[in-house]
């Protein structure tokens, strides 16, 4: 990540030198840093709420029941995670919350899943295959109802704001399949393992 990050920052500076917008960078840097803190702190409330509710659901046996429902699928996707491991329950909750468009709940579940997967990680700080796959799946945005976009379309006066629903589902399913296939293929190459 150090390489990617440095590349992004340096190419921004070089481009700004050419476009004559170096002066704008200073403001952008301070603004972005402040915004990052606002975003992270904004997560604290929902994070706390959903982590609490998840614990309640866990003790009631709900999480396990949900996890058992999709166990065959999860075992294929994440063979290195032992059956009954709490990471599985968190991952299933995260993926279902995403599917239902409950972004607020999906993030805390996903974060917890990542932390639980980290307990299985022999090399702390280096993503495991399961963590990389899970992260990639989360960036594919598979959701039944893209509520934000539908609201934007309705606001812009669309005759049928929700008509893009099916197309969106197909497109994000394609993204999800590619995420899984590429992550699985690249995992076999042991990318970044040797270093």
């Amino acid at each position, binding site marked *: *990540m150090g390489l*990617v990050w440095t590349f*992004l*920052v340096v*190419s*921004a500076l070089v*481009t*700004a030198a050419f476009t004559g*917008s170096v002066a704008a960078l200073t403001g952008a840097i301070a603004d*972005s840093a402040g915004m*990052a803190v606002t975003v992270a702190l904004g997560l604290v409330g929902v*994070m*706390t709420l959903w982590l*609490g*509710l998840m*614990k*309640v*659901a866990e003790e*009631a046996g*709900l999480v396990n029941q949900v996890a058992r429902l999709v166990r065959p699928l999860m075992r294929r996707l994440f063979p290195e995670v032992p059956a009954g491991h709490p990471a599985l329950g968190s991952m299933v909750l995260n993926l279902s919350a995403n599917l239902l468009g409950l972004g*607020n*709940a999906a993030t*805390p579940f996903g*974060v917890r899943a*990542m932390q639980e997967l*980290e307990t299985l990680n022999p090399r*702390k700080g*280096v*993503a495991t295959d399961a*963590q990389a*796959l*899970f*992260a*990639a799946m*989360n*960036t594919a*945005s598979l*959701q039944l*109802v893209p509520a*934000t976009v539908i609201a*934007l*379309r309705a*606001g*812009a*006066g*669309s*005759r049928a*704001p*929700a008509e*893009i629903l099916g197309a*969106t589902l*197909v*497109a*994000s399913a*394609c*993204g999800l399949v*590619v*995420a899984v296939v590429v992550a699985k293929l*690249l995992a076999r190459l042991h990318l*970044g393992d040797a270093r």
Partner: protein
Amino acid sequence: MVLDTLSAWAVPLLVAGIPLYALTRKVNVYAAFLEGAKGGFETGIRIVPPLVAVLVALGMLRASGALDAVARALAPLLEPIGLPASVLPLVVIRPLSGGAALGVVGDVLRTEGPDSYAGRLVSVMCGSTETTFYVLAVYFGAAGITRYRHALPAALLADLAGMTAALVVVRLLFGG
């Protein structure tokens, strides 16, 4: 609309339903809630450093005009395959900044209309992809992971696939 009702009810129903079900299972609901919620603040704070790093880099890229430059450079390649120039900034910006992406979508919906080819295309593209860099920064950051290994290429290729599929599906379904 049914979907509106569903999304309006989903969260309150879960917030009330989970404790109610737990109560019937004789769970000490309040104690369990506090026990689980304990880690929320800490996790939020843990996300700050990686998020500052990623958002500063992306903020610099935007302010420097690099994103626009990439979009302009790609335009002659992508317009022949049915990607209008107005939609192109979205392809570049979507994985980097959720706010900026919604800005582009809003722009296209306003100027070309939500029921135009470009309007439908930005809608599907935006709805079927995620703000990849933000998601990775939050998830990996919270777990203390600094080496993403193949997560980034897999996620970016997924974005590319989602957008390509959006282009194809919108053409097939709506023409244009």
